[in-house]
């Protein structure tokens, strides 16, 4: 991965939920304009916090988040909303609006661009609607546009979640443990979908996951975190048992 200008650059990112008790202890990370980056590490090591800092669902205590020439850590109000429109996000528990239809959920990816009145009246530009149908087709849900989100299975919901994120036409796709609530087969399908969409849209994907094997299989680059710091950064082939011991601690679990 030798991209000319990084799509995202984190500099000295620190996050403390309580004072003097940092979850992230100075993260420096540069992500190129393509490829899937997997962040692995034990629970509670700040993977989720890191992902959520990037689009400011949580506010970092210190450091810079450079994206499209702006420092997201400094933005607020409308500027922050405009930056968020350019970053798609997929969640562990899908976070669909349960009582809305699949189509409404996918189109909600355009809510940053549609006026409140038009959003309320469900009057989206036809180009958005066409694209939504296209995306539903890609994620394999072409048959269910009018079904309510709460009637879908976990795998189907996550597909809607991915369609919603890609609907934003983002320049960066984030995913916070997208497969942790899914069975192994569905997890693989979801990871394949994320990788494919990242490639077809030509955007980088950052996925935070706990399944090392899945990360090895799908990632172009693996970032290992431990205790709020990055302790490994390289291609999957370079990730050895030694590194895993360093990331997760102990070794009894390895074989």
């Amino acid at each position, binding site marked *: 991965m030798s991209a000319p200008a990084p799509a995202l650059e984190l500099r000295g990112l620190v996050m403390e939920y309580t004072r003097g008790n940092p979850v992230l202890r100075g993260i420096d990370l540069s992500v190129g304009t393509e490829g899937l980056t997997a962040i692995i590490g034990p629970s509670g090591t700040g993977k989720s916090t890191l992902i959520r800092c990037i689009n400011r669902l949580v506010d970092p205590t210190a450091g810079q988040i450079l994206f499209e020439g702006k420092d997201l850590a400094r933005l607020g109000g409308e500027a922050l909303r405009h930056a968020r429109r350019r970053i798609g996000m997929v969640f562990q528990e899908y976070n*669909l*609006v*349960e009582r809305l239809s699949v189509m409404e959920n996918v189109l*909600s990816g355009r*809510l*940053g661009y549609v006026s*409140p009145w038009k959003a309320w009246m469900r009057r989206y530009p036809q180009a958005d609607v066409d694209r939504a149908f296209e995306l539903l087709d890609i994620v394999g849900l072409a048959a269910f546009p009018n*079904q309510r989100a709460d009637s879908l299975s976990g795998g189907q919901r996550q597909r809607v979640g991915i369609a*919603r994120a890609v609907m934003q036409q983002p320049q960066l796709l984030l995913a916070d443990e997208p497969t942790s609530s899914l069975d192994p087969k569905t997890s693989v399908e979801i990871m394949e979908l994320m990788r494919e969409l990242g490639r077809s849209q030509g955007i980088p994907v950052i996925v935070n996951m706990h399944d090392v094997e899945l990360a090895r299989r799908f990632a172009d680059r693996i970032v290992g975190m431990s205790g709020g710091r990055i302790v490994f950064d390289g291609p999957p082939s370079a990730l050895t048992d030694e590194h895993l011991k360093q990331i997760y601690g102990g070794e009894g679990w390895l074989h």
Partner: protein
Amino acid sequence: MSGPGARAFPVNWWMRAGWIALAVYVVYAASRLEFTWARFVVGLGNGARFLERMFPPAIAQPDSLATGLLESLQIALLASFLGIVIALPVGLLASRNLMPVWATWPARVAIALCRSFHPVIVAILFVKAVGFGAMAGILALMVASVGFIGKLFAEAIEEISLKQVEAVRATGASFANVITYGVLPQVFTRFIGFATYQLDSNLRNSTMVGIVGAGGIGGTLFSAFQRFDYDFVAAILLSIIAMIMVGEVLAGWVRGVFLEKGKVDAE
């Protein structure tokens, strides 16, 4: 330590003392207010004579019965509609999970004020302010509706899943769009539930505010009472029951429509 015959639960002397104190107070208060069996038995006789004079019901003044009922219905509908329209933003402002303290605090005070008096007392105040008639009744029931819907709406919003809100926020949606997509769908069915309940309750109360001159069938009822026109009173009471029952059926139908819609969508 705990040999045979040990108690499974410790004796709570405070609890026992509390129960005894409550019993003593009930007996004392009843004696103070002359709440006695003898008076009740005498009253039963009076009640029987009263009922006897009510039957058969007779519609002495069909015109004033019809206008009164219609006015009550209009008071209930207008008060519910306007009250709900005001209650929605107030309830939203009062929800502590979405709003900062400087917004929730005044909204909560407003809701508490709206709830602190019975509609009849509020109606008396409005009759003083805007004069006799339906206007006072509408305003009084509006206040009650803002209090009730505002409180329940705020509570419903405080129980929503913030994950759905977060996801909508992450798309870069404006605040208004976060509300319409992330919040409203989650509270919509509950909102329909308590809006129809409020309409029901306004219908009942609209028959009562007339007693203090705030319009509706209550005024007709009160004057019939004062004329000892008990058969007309009976006719009015029966028509009120009929109106309330029709209202309940309608409210049930509205709820059914939305419930049905949810079911179809889920299939």
